[in-house]
């Protein structure tokens, strides 16, 4: 197919639209939220609730994840007009989640609660009604999630943040920098140290898990 210079093909136009559209969609929804459109916020909620829950669940042990997730979205809705679009909506939302998690962890330390590790160990996985065929796999998955969470709870808070945002949720360095307020250079160095610390602590469970599944 011969293209005239300066005229993108239909495929290129569609590709460009798909790359740009997700960001535009969030911005449009945010603007509608700012005008009081709750239905627009519902779309954002459904789009990001699993991500926020996943981050909060791994950052704060115990049974706080559900309440904290709701609190993140309450604050996001109340402050939606303060979102200026200088970062992705996802990064802005996770910044709220990160700040709430840090506050909650500080309160837990102040309350002289059990160590975070003990709370993570005590937490029991729940068994959802699954078929017998899936039960074994489900139990193994729950156990693995629990072990990962236990090990994360043993790490310093900033290491945990780096791992959760980069390795578990695959956010970019720029987004992590915006969420945590650190420079990208600091993000890089902390992430590396976090990975080494996690590897050292998780190695025994990792070996056992993969021996169990016969890797």
């Amino acid at each position: 197919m011969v293209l005239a210079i300066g005229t993108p093909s239909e495929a290129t136009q569609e590709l460009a639209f798909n790359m740009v559209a997700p960001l535009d969609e969030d911005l449009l929804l945010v603007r509608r939220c700012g005008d009081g459109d709750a239905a627009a916020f519902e779309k954002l909620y459904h789009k990001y609730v699993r991500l926020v829950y996943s981050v909060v669940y791994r950052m704060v042990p115990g049974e706080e994840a559900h309440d904290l997730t709701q609190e993140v979205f309450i604050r996001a809705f109340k402050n939606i007009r303060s979102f200026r679009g200088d970062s992705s909506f996802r990064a802005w939302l996770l910044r709220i989640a990160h700040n709430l998690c840090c506050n909650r962890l500080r309160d837990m330390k102040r309350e002289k609660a059990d160590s975070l590790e003990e709370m993570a160990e005590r937490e029991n996985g729940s068994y959802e009604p699954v078929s017998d065929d899936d039960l074994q796999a489900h139990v193994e998955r729950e156990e693995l999630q629990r072990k990962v969470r236990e090990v994360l709870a043993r790490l310093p808070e900033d290491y945990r943040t780096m791992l959760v945002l980069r390795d578990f949720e695959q956010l970019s360095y720029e987004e992590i920098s915006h969420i945590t307020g650190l420079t990208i250079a600091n993000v890089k160095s902390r992430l590396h140290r976090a990975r080494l610390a996690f590897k050292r602590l998780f190695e025994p469970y990792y070996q056992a898990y993969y021996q169990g599944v016969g890797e």
Partner: protein
Amino acid sequence: MRCDEVQERLSALIDEQLSPQEYEQLQHHLHTCEACFREYQELRRFVEFCRQLEAPEPKIDLWREFQPMLAEIVAEQKIPFAQRLRRQWNRLVSQLCYGIILFLQVVTYQLTITLSRYIVEPERAAYGRPAQG
């Protein structure tokens, strides 16, 4: 590049965050240093493990729980600003009153204990003395 310099950059290599020059230097070192290459492989293995791990799922329907909260906030935001301010002021005043009442109760209790040392205790001591005459 020395081994310690290479190992500091392994995460950046995994995340493709190196400059072309650094990338070339690291690749050259990893081809020649078995220890660093092993370290790189192990670190990469853990990073891949974390990336492929399933995200935890909420155990309840979060939207069903959130919907009434959102409705309440929307309803509150529709209240005129002056009325909302008055409502918040009333809430603040009632909380302040509760605080003052609680404070007064604590002060009263403390005063009771302190005064009992000077009034009740001497009387008890007096009863304890043998009768005169």
